[in-house]
């Protein structure tokens, strides 16, 4: 009986052995970690004519809620009208590879592309390096259906409000329409009205968004609250803050000819 228990334990250990050698919970990657997922996903976006209606499912804050993430993926896969998914930051909770990998495995089951943006929790410990290797740059852009999507890091508190984040210089260069895309949408985790946004950059940032020709909306997450839409001075470009996956909610963005509709969907 005792020997049988030992055999079972040894079996358990060897069972764990499938890719379970770990050098540290903080290691930046292991032999099975995917690389440059954002670039790969962007490459799989089909080409779509400018001005046609597109639908984007946006939500952040999967953190370590695998069940909610799984249900979200199943719901999106059951609908055939959505173009792509934005995971708008806080992919992980502790900035650990295990968490990034766990969420990646769930989202990789989506039948449409998903693009992931950096959140404040993703910058904890070695999280920034985990994200860069797994997903790519913290600030990046891509075009779809005549719209330029500008994804960037607004997690100012993680840099101790040192005036570098969001990187306004990078934004000035990239918040520009080009030949293929004359309209723009920005995605970032922390909204400029939040306490975790660098206070000295809040006004210049909102001014920049509002002064960008062709800007449709700036879309954020982070607050785990029902969707809200704010305007800097009551008018101009809408700052949309979505609810969170951990609250079983996402925002369905519909854009037709530069007109945007944002609707919260609970699941």
């Amino acid at each position, binding site marked *: 009986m005792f020997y049988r228990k030992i055999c079972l334990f040894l079996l358990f250990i060897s069972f764990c052995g499938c890719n379970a050698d*770990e050098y540290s*919970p903080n290691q930046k990657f292991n032999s099975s970690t995917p690389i440059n997922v954002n670039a790969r996903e962007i490459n799989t976006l089909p080409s779509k004519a400018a001005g046609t209606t597109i639908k984007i499912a946006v939500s952040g804050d999967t953190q370590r*809620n695998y069940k909610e993430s799984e249900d979200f993926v199943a719901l999106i896969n059951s609908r055939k009208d959505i173009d792509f998914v934005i995971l708008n930051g806080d992919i992980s*909770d502790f900035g650990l590879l295990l968490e990034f990998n*766990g969420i990646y495995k769930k989202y990789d089951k989506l039948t449409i592309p998903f693009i992931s943006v950096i959140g404040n929790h993703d910058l*904890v410990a070695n999280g920034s390096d985990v994200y860069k290797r797994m997903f790519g740059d913290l600030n990046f852009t891509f075009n779809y259906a005549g719209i330029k999507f500008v994804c960037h890091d607004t997690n100012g508190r993680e840099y101790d409000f040192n005036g570098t984040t969001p990187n306004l210089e990078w934004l000035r260069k990239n918040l520009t329409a080009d030949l293929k895309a004359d309209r723009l949408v920005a995605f970032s985790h922390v909204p400029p009205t939040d306490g975790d946004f660098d206070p000295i950059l809040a006004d210049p940032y909102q001014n920049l968004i509002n002064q960008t020709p062709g800007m449709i909306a700036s879309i954020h997450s982070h607050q785990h609250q029902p969707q809200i839409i704010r305007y800097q001075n009551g008018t101009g470009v809408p700052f949309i803050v979505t609810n969170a996956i951990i609250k079983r909610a996402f925002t369905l963005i519909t854009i037709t000819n530069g007109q945007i509709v944002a609707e919260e969907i609970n699941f």
Partner: protein
Amino acid sequence: MDKLLPKKLIFRFVVILGLLTSSAYAQKSFLKRIEPDQVNLQYAGSIGYFSGGIGYNLLNEKATLSAHYGYVPKNKGGWMSIFTAKFEYKPFAINIKEKIIIHPINPVFFPSYTSGDNFDYQFKTSQYKEGYYFWSSALRLHLGAGTEVKIISHLNSSLKSVSLYAEANTNDLYAISWLENRTTTPFYEMFKLGYGVRVNF
């Protein structure tokens, strides 16, 4: 007086010799006391790509307390330096013909500390309000179990035995994640493995 001189000299010599030997003996026993009972080399197990350590037997060799230094090179997901203290309890021993002892299941507890700019014992209070992030990024508390095969040396040397072991561990943050995801994540997924060799003196 003259007759006493050799006696005095002998007496002095004996005293000095006595002092020397006793101090040498004291030194030897001190060294003997701090001399580790084992040295250890481990692959993986969440405390480094490779880690090395020294350990001491406690509770009549039913437990060991050891200190380890481990590193993760850049091309394996680092660079990181990790300091670990391990307490291992060995409740069962199966003796096979006095040649091999199997410790089938040794519960183990080890705090590990990762050094570096990205890691703090506590998140800075100047940067975050209290409780913003509740955990420590540098300090992990690991809990696990090992299984060990000890091969006993019958050579007349100071080397008593060599052990091979495998160890599964999880840590505080993995356990929290698993607890909240019990319905979707299998229990074994939060356990990570390491393998090692231990030389016992």
